């Protein structure tokens, strides 16, 4: 995966948080992890990618970050249903925005939301993923990219 490809997703994260919260978000240096030990926080929104690129893009965050982000959106209901909805929407927005760079053949699925880390069903064990660390307010989160064909 090239630096330019990663930058597409980094720009997507920054755009999301800037538009949504008007607060600065910091993005750390991306690093590689083994899919047998996927990076994860409390909740994860997973987007399946198909077309010329195949794999998964996911956003994972602790409940505290997601609760705070909901409040920033003007949403007072921080129930688990809305937390799961939000983590899926963030993943969907970041992956969807990537089509501006990759074109309409970069097909994205509807989000799958889970508590904890993606399983081997979502992440092929023979591949590795790039983790993009995200820091917003005092919270840590991550966007994780596992793609073939880029």
């Amino acid at each position, binding site marked *: 995966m090239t630096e330019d490809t990663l930058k597409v997703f980094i720009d997507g994260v920054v755009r999301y948080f800037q538009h949504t919260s008007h607060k600065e978000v910091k993005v750390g240096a991306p690093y590689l992890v083994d899919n047998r030990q996927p990076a994860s926080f409390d909740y994860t929104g997973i987007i399946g990618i198909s077309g010329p690129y195949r794999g998964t893009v996911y956003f994972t965050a602790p409940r505290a970050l997601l609760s705070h982000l909901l409040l920033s959106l003007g949403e007072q209901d921080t129930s688990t249903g809305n937390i799961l909805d939000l983590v899926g*929407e963030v993943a969907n927005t970041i992956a969807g925005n990537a089509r501006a760079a990759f074109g309409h053949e970069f097909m994205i699925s509807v989000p799958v939301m889970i508590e904890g880390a993606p399983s081997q069903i979502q992440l092929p064990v023979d591949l590795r993923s790039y983790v993009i660390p995200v820091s917003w307010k005092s919270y840590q989160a991550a966007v994780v990219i596992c793609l073939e064909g880029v």
Partner: protein
Amino acid sequence: MLDVMIVDDSNIIRRKIERSADRQFFNIVALARNGLEAVDLFQAHRPQVVTMDLTMPEMDGIECVERLVKIDPAVRILVISALSDVETGILALERGARGFLCKPFDDEQLNGALTELVEGLHD
């Protein structure tokens, strides 16, 4: 006052649009979670304005735009989607949408897009 239906599979986005739309001009009459539900609610409420997500389960937004325009060719549909490639925007417009707003968006962008969408309808 124009009647509006909001179509999005995310409860948070539906509620955000509902909260943010200028109530001086827009009256929210229906909220739909997917394209199939949207077709049913559209027939029941006949809103003049629809905000439409694209990536949804059951029936996606492009197919739903086509169905709604067949029912009422005068309906004003604003697509609100994270799919930010030019081809998707053109496809939505070709199928009958009248505007396109990319997620993420803020209140000002939403109301700007809605105002542009309904230009002439208030007269």
